[in-house]
């Protein structure tokens, strides 16, 4: 029963729980006639009972939509009453629709039928369970090749660690790889796995020794690092510096070893890689909100700050899973991809002494909290000069964060032998065009961060880098309570 603004609808009532339709047997009033509240308006017949229907409103009968003799579903609009005061308008209008009443009448039951049917069909799929019985998992041996059956937990662990279950010796029924088998395999030697894939067993350390990352040049205290640095320095002509001519007002000072290392690396990097930078602007509102939300808990429970860098690092590692080439290395004419991400985070040393890039090993295994802690730990150790050689080797991708100075864009240099470096910049409140709930453009104030990916175009093309940045942005802009 509804009064749509000015009109009152008369509907077929449900006379009993199991009744679904009724027949109009007699109209006691005709269009144009006055009707009082509760005055009998028509007679109906159902499976269970014949009865009169009292009018739900007072006014003039404007339209009769279902003629005598017609059977309609419960809830069908039978007639429309125009409340008193409108009859002057309704009366003439009534004549016109009346002959056309035949057409709407034919249609009216249909919509009711349509609304009824989907309800019925809608419930059926829910009540009828899939007929197929759950497929009986046959014992692996029965499949014929026990090694091809992978249980859900083994599949998950394999995916998480980038391990091919086929490479794992299986002790389960029929040679099946069990959870224990794959866990033992992973513990025994994650390095062994990439070795298998590459088919050459170079220790991961070796590439770093050949092509030192500038971060290798920590202050002299850790001897092995200095030793590693030494070959790099030694690779240069012995530190004989050509005599420098000075003009009036000019002063000279010698370069530190670190400075020389940086100088060498930067030049070499530009000479090696085909540097191209792409940029994307990210609406960081959700990150800002998530950070606010998590800050107290992280501080209180873990003593760690969920920094924007931590969020971006987390999202970057996730995105790299879909872009293995951006996490790769060119060796000769081979493209070497990895199942792991060793994420380098550039840390500026104090007083302009240089740049160091400690590495979070196996960042793919860390959630937001783990990432935040790892970053905090490495940064602290970097500043207090407690980094170990392993902390600065083996990176596969780097993030640099010059935005602390307020700069909104940059073109970092790739840290060899990697093929990409992500630059994050200042978070700036900008007027931003968004869509409101009606899909219309409105201007909101949003915290926007520009993010760049500088990539080696020898391996990575614009389309790939574009996709990566797009996906990264989606992750950051779509951060919600379920993200970690």
């Amino acid at each position, binding site marked *: 029963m509804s009064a749509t603004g000015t009109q009152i609808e008369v*509907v*077929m009532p*449900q006379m009993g*729980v199991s009744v679904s339709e009724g027949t109009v047997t007699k109209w006691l009033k005709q269009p144009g006639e006055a009707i009082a509240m509760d005055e009998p308006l028509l007679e109906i017949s159902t499976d*269970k*009972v014949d009865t009169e229907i*009292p009018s739900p409103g007072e006014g003039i009968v404007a339209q009769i939509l279902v003629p005598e003799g017609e059977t309609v579903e419960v809830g069908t609009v039978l007639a429309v009453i125009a409340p008193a005061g409108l009859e002057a308008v309704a009366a003439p209008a009534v004549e016109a629709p009346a002959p056309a009443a035949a057409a709407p009448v034919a249609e009216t039951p249909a919509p009711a039928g349509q609304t009824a049917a989907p309800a019925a069909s809608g419930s059926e799929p829910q009540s009828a369970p899939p007929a197929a019985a759950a497929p009986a998992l046959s014992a692996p041996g029965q499949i014929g090749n026990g090694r091809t059956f992978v249980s859900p937990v083994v599949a998950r662990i394999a995916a998480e660690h980038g391990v091919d279950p086929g490479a794992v010796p299986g002790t389960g029924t029929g040679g099946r790889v069990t959870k224990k088998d794959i866990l033992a395999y992973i513990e025994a030697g994650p390095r062994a796995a990439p070795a298998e894939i590459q088919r050459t067993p170079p220790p991961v350390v070796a590439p770093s020794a050949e092509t030192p990352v500038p971060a290798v040049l920590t202050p002299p205290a850790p001897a092995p690092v200095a030793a590693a640095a030494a070959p790099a320095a030694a690779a240069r002509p012995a530190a004989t510096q050509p005599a420098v001519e000075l003009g009036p007002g000019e002063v000279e000072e010698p370069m530190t070893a670190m400075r020389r290392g940086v100088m060498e690396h930067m030049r070499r990097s530009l000479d090696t890689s085909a540097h191209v930078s792409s940029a994307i602007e990210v609406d960081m509102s959700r990150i800002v909100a998530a950070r606010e939300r998590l800050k107290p808990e992280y501080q209180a429970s873990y003593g760690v700050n969920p920094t924007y860098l931590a969020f971006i690092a987390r999202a970057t590692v996730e995105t790299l899973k879909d872009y293995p080439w951006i996490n790769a290395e060119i060796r000769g004419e081979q493209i070497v991809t990895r199942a792991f991400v060793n994420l380098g985070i550039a840390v500026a040393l104090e007083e302009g002494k240089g740049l160091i890039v400690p590495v979070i090993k196996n960042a793919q295994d860390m959630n937001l909290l783990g990432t935040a802690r790892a970053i905090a730990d490495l940064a602290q150790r970097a500043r207090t000069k407690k980094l170990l050689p392993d902390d600065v080797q083996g990176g596969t991708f780097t993030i640099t964060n010059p935005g602390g100075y307020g700069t909104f864009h940059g073109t970092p240099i790739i840290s060899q032998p990697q093929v990409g470096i992500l630059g994050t910049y200042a978070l700036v409140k900008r007027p931003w065009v968004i869509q409101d709930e009606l899909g219309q453009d409105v201007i909101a104030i949003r915290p926007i961060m520009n993010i760049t990916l500088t990539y080696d175009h020898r391996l990575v093309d614009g389309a790939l880098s574009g996709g990566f940045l797009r996906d990264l942005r989606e992750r950051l802009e779509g951060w919600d309570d379920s993200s970690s």
Partner: protein
Amino acid sequence: MAVREAEPVGSLQEVQDAGLDREDLLGIYRNLLITRGIEERGHILYKQGKIPGSFYTGRGNEASAVGVATAMGADDVGCPLQRDMGVHVTHGVEPWRIFAQYMGRAGGPTQGRDGNVHIGDAKLGLHAMVSHLPAMLPVAVGMALAFRIREERRVAIAWCGEGAANRGDAHEGMNFAGVRQLPVVFVIDNNQWTYSTPTHLEYAAEHLADRAAGYGFEGVVVDGTDVLAVYREAKRAIEKARAGGGPTLVESVTLRMEGHAVHDDASYVPKEMFEEWSRRDPIDRFRTWLLDNAALRPDEEDELTSGVKRLLNDALQRADESPLPDPSDLLDGVFAEPEALDTPHHK
């Protein structure tokens, strides 16, 4: 104990000796009018499609319901059934909430969780019925058990229809009540039709009150259209129970003046029965009695009827404007929390 057939009530003096003054009588009349008014209005609403599900009323049973309810004490409790709207009205359930209940609104006593006349405001001592009749009869006996254990002078009333009386629950409840002589009064609303089944196909005893002897207590048959006779018998039975005299079975005989529910036109009831019993309409009957014995004045009557009409119109409007329940509350209250118990456990 033989079954006693109650006599009609005579003069105003007799009534006043029984404890009712003229004010009370006008109050009874008002409750009868409200009861019928609510149910008539409900019929119309149902046919207008405003009430979902099914719709049951107790036309013809108003005097039986109001009569028993009037005889109950302030701390007595009961489990009325679908023909006993008069019990809820007499105990003060607001009519707007009854309409809200019919229409499945959130403001109804069950907040839309149960429908039609499955209502019972526990604060007023009434507990909602269940469809599996008479499932609440043993429950009412349990209430009487609590009174007996705590030695409280309170009584429980268990209503039952003449059909429901034939189910095991009725037998087990009555037997237990008799064994322990519990303070419970059993009221059988015998309206002579269990849906479409006449009494001779429903039970074999001459009177259902005959069964009381089998349970060890007294039975009485009363004309359910005579509100004062019902009151008198109910009062006698209730006070007897209160004084420790054990249960009584009061069989109140009426005719169900409508179908089992609004979708039933009761065409199986012989027309003569309807004609005979409509001459004994409980409300007309009491009105006549008031005119003859209590000097009911036209202005008093007008005031009563117009007052009831206003009350019900306002109630209907209020209910109509009240919200439907929120589906997000669907699972609330499946289990009770400790706070729902009205006294701390360890007391």
